């Protein structure tokens, strides 16, 4: 526990009248052991940001006409882009797996008269949707249908 937490962490609004030692962050935080998965989960945020803007560039090029489209297609073959996309794919799958594991229990037991289905059912539905949406879109994009 070498790292210090925020000096005001869990400090009462009016501190007691004795001197206290500052709070320490939990052991292993943020990069090691049990915090690794969570930290990675957060850090994928940066990848998602980049990913969004890359996609924006591609779609923007599509709007610019055939020349721009060809050019962006060419750029995507750049190993840097390829590496980025491989990393992105791993991230996206990691995010999906972690989030879909945590998602069911985040459903309130009841919203008004509605009750969500049991956890495993939600999870199965999420995976089905994932496979369906991603698979469907991939097929469309890859020319399998339409």
């Amino acid at each position, binding site marked *: 526990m070498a790292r210090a937490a925020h000096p005001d*962490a*869990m400090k*009462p609004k009016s*501190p*007691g009248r004795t001197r*206290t*030692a500052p709070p320490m962050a939990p052991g292993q935080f943020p990069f090691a052991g*049990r915090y690794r998965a969570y930290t990675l989960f957060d850090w994928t945020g940066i990848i998602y940001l980049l990913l969004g803007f890359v996609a924006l560039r591609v779609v923007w090029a599509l709007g610019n006409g055939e020349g721009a489209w060809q050019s962006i297609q060419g750029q995507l073959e750049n190993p840097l882009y390829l590496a980025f996309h491989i990393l992105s794919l791993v991230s996206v799958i990691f995010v999906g797996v972690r989030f879909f594991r945590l998602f069911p229990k985040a459903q309130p*037991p009841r919203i008004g008269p509605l009750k969500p289905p049991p956890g495993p059912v939600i999870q199965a539905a999420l995976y089905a949707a994932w496979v369906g949406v991603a698979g469907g879109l991939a097929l469309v994009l890859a020319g399998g249908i339409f």
Partner: protein
Amino acid sequence: MSEKKTFRITRFDPDRDEAPRTETYEIPVDPDWKVLDALNFIKDEIDGSLSHRWSCRMAVCGSCGMMVDGKPTLTCKKALSEYGSEISVEPLANFPVVRDLVVELDGFMEKFESVKPWIIRAKERAVEEGTHRQSQAELEEFKQFSMCINCMLCYSACPVVANEPEFIGPAAIALGHRYNLDSRDEGAHERNEIFRGEGSVFSCSYANECSEVCPKSVDPAAAVNQAKINAVIDWATGFVVTRGKE
């Protein structure tokens, strides 16, 4: 009592120490001991000045939480045999340290109180009217979240608590959520406003570590994230329904 184990314990006496230090004790241990038994042995037999909180020694009063080998642990519940021959015991992370293994609790109590953890009703029910009817299903909805023993392990594990002093935090949100889910309560809107206010439920980034360390399977991560959904629904319905201000 033949086996020996070494304990590295954080010591801090604000009257004398500039900063916390570590002291090492080697003691004979009994195979049936919990971590707390070892601490009590040290206090009784070796160093009477060691300070730590404990009372029930049956995992229900919530006072004996500490970092054992870097992990928030209820020391009266965890068997010594689960650890190696060297064990580190530190005060709970994310809390100011009052002394040795004793942390400042008042910050937690403030957060605890801030969620209005009591039944709020438009009209109080009179004793003569008898008890409420509550079905087993209705009870099940909040039961789990009412099991919290306020041991604060979840606060020690939560990365957001470490960095955002305002965050209401897992156990307190779970408690507020418990009342929101209780069929006898009518204060959900009030609490949802608190949940959306400073230190809001949205600060939680679903690290889920709170639930990993919770000794009572309260699953505070579930509560916090359910509370987010309810807080959003409550916020959205605010545009549709006009609510009378109390």
